[in-house]
């Protein structure tokens, strides 16, 4: 089972809220997490097949810039990774594992986590951001976009839990 040496949800929420507030104050935008994955897809495809990548209108927003990887959110998620790594190591919470529900086999987990990731990647582009950029940052601005996204996400999450109940039981 999981080790549960996490800190209080309220402390974590205050910490995240203050880092988000500092981000608004310093930069003028919020914290994001999904756009780097789209940038990686664009840059990766450009390496493999430059002419096809160049033909994709959606990727031109990244590929038409001088250096697509020199992006604020790309640097932010590098920091995110290091911060989470530091948190896990310092609290003795780091453990190499292939995490899954206890009724979910390894092969099922491999398929569901990848398929879930595909849905997330597609949906985040359609919504113009994810739980960080739209829900958290948008929610804090009291932006309509944030509340539309959060409401739809929670309703759909509860429906999914009813349909795929066994996954995390």
């Amino acid at each position, binding site marked *: 089972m999981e080790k549960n040496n996490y800190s209080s949800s309220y402390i974590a*929420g205050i910490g995240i809220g203050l880092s988000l507030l500092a981000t608004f104050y310093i930069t003028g935008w919020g914290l994001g997490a999904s756009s780097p994955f789209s940038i990686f897809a664009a840059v990766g495809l450009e390496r493999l097949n430059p002419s096809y990548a160049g033909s994709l209108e959606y990727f031109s927003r990244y590929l038409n810039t001088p250096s697509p990887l020199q992006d604020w959110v790309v640097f932010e998620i590098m920091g*995110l990774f290091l911060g989470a790594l530091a948190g896990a190591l310092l609290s003795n919470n780091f453990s190499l594992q292939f995490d899954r529900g206890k009724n979910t086999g390894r092969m099922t987990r*491999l398929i569901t986590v990848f398929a879930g990731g595909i849905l997330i990647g597609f949906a985040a*582009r*359609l919504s113009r951001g994810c739980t960080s950029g739209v829900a958290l940052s948008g929610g804090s601005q009291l932006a309509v976009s944030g509340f539309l996204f959060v409401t739809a996400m929670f309703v759909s999450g509860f429906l999914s839990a009813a349909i795929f109940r066994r996954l995390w039981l």
Partner: protein
Amino acid sequence: MTAPLYAYGMFNENTSLLFAIFLGFIFGLFLERGGLGNPHKLTGVFYLRDFTVPKVMFTAILVAATGLYLLSDMKLLDMSRIWIVPAFFWPQIAGGALFGVGFFVSGYCPGTAIAGFASGRIDALVCMLGIITGSLLFAVSFPAVDGFYMSTPMGGTTLPQLLQLNHWYVIGFLVLFAAGMFYIGAHK
């Protein structure tokens, strides 16, 4: 009025990238410490057994919203220079709904997958590869979805503007909503 600092030219792009690493570090540290790198905790709310996700999320939103609007009211921050994610009604409803399925099935979202991988979870790395694949799929199918993607635009609207209410009423309502939810979730 001197903030947002970057919009007022207080530093250059390279310095802003250093801030990105620093601010991301704090974000990731608290995500992991709050248990949001753990897919069991991330999906717990959907079984009504672990309210970590809504507790962390609403606390963070209320802290940042209070600070943001307080700084704006005190004329220490120019709200018109803050970039607000534009609302597109149906795309964000559909996107949120698809995202909810992906979130439950994978047990992660983009930021928490990174936090999960950083705490040693290889499945979170597979999720990240899926997210890249899904982004690619969106770009490939963009000619077909572009019409829908651009439909029902509402602009960078906020709830106070839409409802024509003072922002403190909206924040007050959110506090009440969160308090009710925290009360229900207190014993979970």
